[in-house]
């Protein structure tokens, strides 16, 4: 098994890594996921990619271009637009000794295959105890802007986070997108791998050799004392910028990039809340019934005695994303709003 050693060697925090890293190679998020897919296929001939657009012009934002020439059309399977069937087939392959990676251009398209994800993939291992588990990955990209609107910009981490049988991850950096993808392919559990289109041009250090990051581990992006800010995916960008500006006013916070939505890193978040006593969750999606709702409930149940303020949440105001430019601008929380909420939380008495 090519994955056993890789996982055992796994490094888990980009900060540690970049300090030790002499290579210092900079890639974009898009380049990092492209490299990760290529390396997974090279490492293990049982890795199969499939989906609509994986082997035709466009190549899922160029993340799969050249793969069929390299690995053959049998391992790079262009499919009909039949989300339910190809999701079921992905499960069928995963329980037959392969490691399939199903790819969707958008989160929204996942819903067409909801029966296969929720009724089948999420229960399969519990019901049928497969010796090799159910090693499959479903990639789906969150889009935003340019009027993508109601059915092309949704972000469904919370919808799937309640399912025991599926891991849900949302990498935000080039380092993470590569390591978490290879970690997801290596994992014996099904993984829903949610990327964000607006992160594709962001840059960061990415080592050239393969490495894995396991699910369930958050990354502490910066440390402080006055509050804890938990964010995910693209929402991290606003948080980072807000905290940078707030630092000039002398404000400091723990900034935790959740990275893994299910399972989520209770230990890291709780430890920080015990220290700061204040928690804000910045959701990359609707606030209502979001990931922040689960985190807020959990922390309030188990760590209420450490809390000096109610748990704050920011996110999208509703579940229908508007298309018009002014509506869109108003819909997504602005960086100013994030800044304002952090300040409000810190000043809360």
């Amino acid at each position, binding site marked *: 098994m090519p994955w056993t050693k890789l996982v055992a060697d796994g490094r888990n925090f980009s900060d540690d890594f970049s300090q030790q890293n002499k290579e210092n190679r900079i890639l974009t998020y898009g380049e990092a996921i492209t490299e990760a897919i290529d390396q997974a296929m090279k490492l293990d001939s049982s890795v199969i990619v499939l989906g609509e657009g994986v082997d035709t012009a466009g190549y899922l934002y160029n993340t799969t271009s050249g793969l069929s020439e390299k690995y053959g059309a049998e391992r790079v399977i262009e499919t009909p637009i039949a989300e339910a069937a190809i999701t*079921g087939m992905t*499960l069928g392959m995963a329980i*037959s000794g392969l490691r399939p990676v199903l790819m969707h251009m958008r989160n929204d398209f996942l819903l067409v295959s909801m029966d296969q994800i929720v009724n089948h993939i999420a229960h*399969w291992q519990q*019901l049928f105890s497969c010796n090799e588990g159910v090693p499959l990955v479903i990639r789906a990209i969150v889009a935003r802007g340019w009027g993508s609107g109601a059915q092309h910009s949704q972000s469904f981490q919370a919808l799937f986070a309640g399912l025991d049988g599926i891991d849900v991850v949302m990498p935000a950096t080039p380092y993470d997108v590569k390591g978490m993808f290879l970690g997801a392919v290596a994992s014996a559990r099904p993984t829903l791998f949610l990327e964000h289109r607006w992160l594709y041009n962001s840059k960061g250090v990415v080592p050239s050799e393969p490495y894995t990051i396991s699910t369930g581990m958050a990354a502490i992006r910066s440390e402080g004392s006055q509050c804890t800010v938990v964010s995910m995916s693209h929402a991290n960008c606003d948080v980072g910028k807000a905290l940078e500006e707030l630092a000039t006013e002398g404000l400091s916070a723990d900034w935790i990039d959740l990275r893994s939505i299910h399972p989520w890193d209770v230990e890291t978040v709780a430890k920080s809340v015990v220290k700061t006593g204040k928690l804000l969750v910045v959701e990359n999606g609707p606030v209502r019934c979001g990931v922040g709702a689960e985190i807020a409930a959990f922390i309030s149940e188990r760590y209420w005695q450490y809390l000096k303020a109610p748990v704050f949440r920011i996110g999208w105001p509703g579940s229908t994303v508007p298309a018009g430019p002014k509506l869109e601008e108003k819909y997504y929380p602005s960086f100013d709003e994030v800044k304002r909420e952090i300040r409000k939380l810190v000043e809360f008495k």
Partner: protein
Amino acid sequence: MEQEKAYELYRNLIKIRMAEEQIVAEYSKQEIRTPVHLCIGQEAIAVGVSSCLDKEDFVVSNHRCHGHSLAKGLELQPFFLELYGKQGGVTNGWGGSMHLCDMEHGVIGTSAIVAGGIPIGAGVALAQKIKKEKGITVIYFGDGAVDEGVFWETVNFAGLKKLPILFVFENNKYASQTPDNMRHSYRDIRPIVEGFGLSVAEVDGTDTIAVAENSQALVEKIRSGQGPGFLICDTYRWLGHVGIVDDSHTGYRSPEEVEYWRKKCPVKRMQQYLQQQDSQHSDHKMREIEDECKEKVLMAIQQAKEAPYALD
């Protein structure tokens, strides 16, 4: 058909029939606490199809999965342990009647969502093709499943990629209580499926020998790489969609219709066949098979009753 093989088919028919008749006998005691979708009247299909399969061939089944699993080799003991929710059941009590499996004999899994298992079976077959394995995958489904979009999506993909699949369409005429003429704008599925490039055979689904022979012809084509086969089986369930009683009194089907199909009993037809083929010994041999099977079923039930419940 070789006599020895014909007796094996009879043994499988009896195994399924007796197992399900005992479920009917035991069910009111409320110790089997799982909804049962019995296949009494439909056994010939699973038995005939399984007679063409090897160990490396996989089966994906549906909510009416007892016959498919038992015919492929599932033993009676883990089967009944599962129905009773006991330790040692095929899924250790997690799945119940609608989620049988038996990896040792290739029963890779079962979906209780109508048509849900069909694309999964196609994925298993796609893996067999990619890995250049000899085996094929059998997908069982009823006439309710062909109402589903995912059935057609899968038939299309299977035809496109020439996957090693035998689709077994058990047309028992009703989706729960809704007759097929209230659900289908077409009368005949055959030309539609042929249009997707599948090899189709139609068979009387109460005639085990005919099912076996027609499956064999399709399986040979599939194994030789000619793409998927589609076996249309005309059949009928004697009892209700779920549970242990004939529900014709509720009005969606007539008692006369049920009676017509009871006369086409797969077990009786097989008995007649064996009597013709082996007039001297058949009665004795069949009785031996029946006695042996009855004992196994009763023992499996007794053991299941005594076994500890699955708790985690």
